[in-house]
């Protein structure tokens, strides 16, 4: 089973140390929700796990049935930006990412894309230029990437931004399916996401110093 261990992790941004001496473990099947006030370092942590930022000290290691590829290539990173091109249709956008991230025959990709689009309620909009979609629809199209290419680790940075209630619900189901399938999910969020038994990782000085803050947080 997959484990992700962070050991004594410190990360600097500019001249400030944003995360210092953080240790935690994420296990397959258990969603890890990273919470904390603005500027606490949630985004920084997610990007460090994805490999964009090199920690100034400490290690992040993946244990379990791992090949030789590094963490970055075994994870889906979904940040604030959607990676959607306005001048490609919704289906073309998704087909590109399916091919780029995973590969497969033309037909297999078409099927996966169709399935993902209808899953996210975008079936009817498949052939529209993505530029015409509303903010929430664009966001869903970005999330549909999660289901067209299989990756064991999902790193989500505030995935519910601009999503309506139904889509949030859908995302929660998708995350749970992924967890049941032995996947690992780490999400930075201000909202509970509607997951069943999340594990919380609290960041930020206030959260650590003031235990009453725990009630405020989801």
């Amino acid at each position, binding site marked *: 089973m997959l484990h992700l261990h962070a050991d004594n992790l410190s990360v600097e941004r500019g001249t400030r140390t944003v995360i210092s001496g953080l240790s935690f473990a994420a296990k397959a099947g258990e969603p890890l929700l990273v919470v904390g006030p603005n500027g606490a370092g949630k985004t920084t942590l997610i*990007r460090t796990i*994805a*490999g*964009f*930022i*090199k920690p100034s000290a400490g290690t992040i290691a993946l244990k379990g049935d791992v090949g030789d*590829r590094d963490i*970055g*290539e075994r*994870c*889906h*990173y979904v*940040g*604030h*930006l*959607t*990676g*959607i*091109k306005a*001048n*490609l249709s919704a289906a*073309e956008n998704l087909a*590109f*990412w399916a*091919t*780029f*991230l995973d*590969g497969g025959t*033309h037909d297999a990709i078409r099927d996966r894309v169709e399935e993902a689009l209808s899953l996210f309620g975008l079936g009817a909009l498949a052939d529209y230029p993505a530029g015409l979609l509303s903010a929430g629809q664009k966001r869903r199209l970005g999330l549909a*990437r999660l289901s067209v290419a299989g990756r064991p680790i999902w790193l989500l940075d505030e995935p519910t931004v601009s999503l309506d209630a139904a889509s949030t619900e859908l995302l929660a189901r998708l995350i749970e399916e992924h967890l049941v399938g032995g996947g690992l999910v780490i999400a930075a969020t201000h909202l509970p996401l509607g997951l069943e038994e999340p594990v919380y990782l609290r960041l930020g000085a206030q959260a650590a110093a003031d235990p009453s803050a725990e009630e405020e947080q989801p």
Partner: protein
Amino acid sequence: MSAFLALLKRDLTLAVREGAALGTALGFYLVVVAMLPLGLGPDLKLLSRIAPGILWIALLLAALLSLARLFEADHEDGSLEVMATAPLPLELAVAAKALAHWISTGIPLALMAPVIGLMLNLDIALTPALIATMLAGTPAISFLGSVGAALTLNARRGGLLLALLVLPLYIPTLIFGISAIGFAGVAQHGFGASFLILLAISVASMAAAPVAAAAALRLQMS
């Protein structure tokens, strides 16, 4: 279809749909070359003598300025980050994008050159040599330029700075491109040597530039 080809296809599709980019580059090429006879006076002999050099330099500038946005859209909409976590090494993704730029801008500019050369009274007999050298040399322009585009992704003063950084790297391409055309007028065998060097420069930059550009991009994602 492999990831490399998928990215190449996507960038080409986008280039076709956003046709204005190519139009602007061609327009710029035309305007810059058209200013020359105005600046130098309409001495046709003089013009036809300097035509290949001017066509090359204006092509460098047009290609370069159109490169300024090579990574910008992918940076702004987050595609670059997704690419960085894909199985395809970022170096190859950069190469696919530079290749798409060559196909969508470098080739049209090279093919337009003899037509624009008519304004400079270019010797028509040079057309094949001009097109051949430009096709052989423009990959180096796209690939070396991709390093500059990656370095200036977050910089103020985009176009000017990019030109300052990258034009010096283009000098070998320019020298051998022109010397090949010069030989084409006289002896075929000199042409061959210069042409081969031009190809070698292009191949070398196709191999080396993506490494530097990918490193610059990674630094900017952190």
